[in-house]
């Protein structure tokens, strides 16, 4: 589904942000992207979405990302931003959810059917006509995920989906992520959440991919995590040495 081939990126020539990244994510796979601050997680997401241009090849469903394929690829990828306030720019949840389907040429009736189906699936029917500025943090995050699901993307990319949420709302978001059938790439510092939602983990450090493997294996490797300025997830801290 998603393939990075020798991808590099730098804002300034002598300070690379991503260096020679290569990996592949299969359809339906749920992959966690972890790493300390400045490791390059968000930049990697932005490159994948065509918001930044680097070197190397990025392929989505076999199509190489370039100017000509940008809109086709963006249609396949739904990106949940870290700050939901930056994602929800329409006055109400309903209008926000209608934004993408209408832009992709659906009729208003079709788009509304899709919006209703997503809201029902996530149990968010009561948010439909609420004003975005009146939602709580948890509601905003769920609404932001709903706006992306209304696009019916083939893959969902999430940047810190559990940040700034209380435990109850965090659990709701985690359950929602687990229920999504799409391919998922989740960048987060919340390793417990990654453990709960991902089968595989990519560990990044200083723009490089330092580990790629099953979630439990990587997240229980204290030495590997600490060498890359990370710590064991809380739920594993008592179980490993």
């Amino acid at each position: 589904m998603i393939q990075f081939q020798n991808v590099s990126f730098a804002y300034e020539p002598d300070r690379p942000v991503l260096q020679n990244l290569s990996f592949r994510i299969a359809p339906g796979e749920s992959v966690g992207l972890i790493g300390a601050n400045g490791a390059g997680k968000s930049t990697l997401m932005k490159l994948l979405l065509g918001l930044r241009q680097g070197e190397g090849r990025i392929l989505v469903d076999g199509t190489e990302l370039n100017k000509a394929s940008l809109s086709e690829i963006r249609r396949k990828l739904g990106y949940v931003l870290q700050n939901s306030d930056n994602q929800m720019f329409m006055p109400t949840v309903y209008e926000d959810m209608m934004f993408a389907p209408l832009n992709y040429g659906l009729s208003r009736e079709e788009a509304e059917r899709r919006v209703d189906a997503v809201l029902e699936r996530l149990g968010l029917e009561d948010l439909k006509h609420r004003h975005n500025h009146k939602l709580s943090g948890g509601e905003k995050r769920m609404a932001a995920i709903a706006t992306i699901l209304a696009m019916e993307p083939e893959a969902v990319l999430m940047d810190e989906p559990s940040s700034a949420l209380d435990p109850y709302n965090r659990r709701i978001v985690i359950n929602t992520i687990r229920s999504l059938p799409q391919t998922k790439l989740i960048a987060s510092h919340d390793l417990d959440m990654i453990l709960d939602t991902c089968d595989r983990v990519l560990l990044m450090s200083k723009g490089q991919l330092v580990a790629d493997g099953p979630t439990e294996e990587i997240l229980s490797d204290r030495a590997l995590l600490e060498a890359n300025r990370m710590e064991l997830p809380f739920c594993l801290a008592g179980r490993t040495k």
Partner: protein
Amino acid sequence: MNKMQKALRELAEMDELAAQNSIIHRLCPTAKLLATVLYIAVVLSFGKYQLSGLAVLLLWPVLLFQLSGIPVHICFYKLRIVLPLVLAVGLFNPFFDRAILLRLGPLAVSGGFISMLTLMLKGLLCLMASFLLMATTNFDSLCASLRKLHIPGMLVTLLLLTYRYVGVMTEELAVMTEAYSLRAPGQKGLQVSAWGSFLGQLLLRSMDRAQELYASMLLRGYHEHFHYAPMKPFGPGDVVYLALSALFFLVLRFVPAAQLLGNLLLR
């Protein structure tokens, strides 16, 4: 809640006012927009000494306030910053135009004084009409009607995004002023020495947020064309509203209603 947060709240309140359900709220936005534009044109067409003729035009906003159920004090509260500026426009007229225009018993009233009052009233009426339009019509619907009236799409999108970005910028300002006040206890306002860096930071932060928002739009298929929510169609009720409004304005423009009323009362 600091001043900026209050400003944000007020911005949101305008959307809430527009979401109410009165006979005026239910009218087609295009009819309301056209009536408002016509009203403003008629107001501006009055001469600088035609104060009495202009005063009668107050009836229209008063009627709309009644029909829409929007309290008048909200209008004056929301306009409290811009109103003094508008009212100050003709402040110097009495000094330049000293010719006596009329006498009220022993009191001589100069042309400058009348033209000052006329200018003030014009400003007030235009602001009230604009406020009523905004308070009874959702901003998106307003933009949709502008498109329907063939105003260029780019211009309308710019208007819509500016409206949205005012909120974004105010949010940033709210966060920054709060952070500043927490580290400057007892200080009133912002120190002059901090203005430059404060404004610079505000600009950079707003630009960052605006870029994120724009990225979010692009990633959801935005291509310089907004899909506005469908508007209520222009129905018979809207035709009647527009026709009656136009008739009312034109009658008040060309028939000296105040003079006739005065003559009637003096008889």
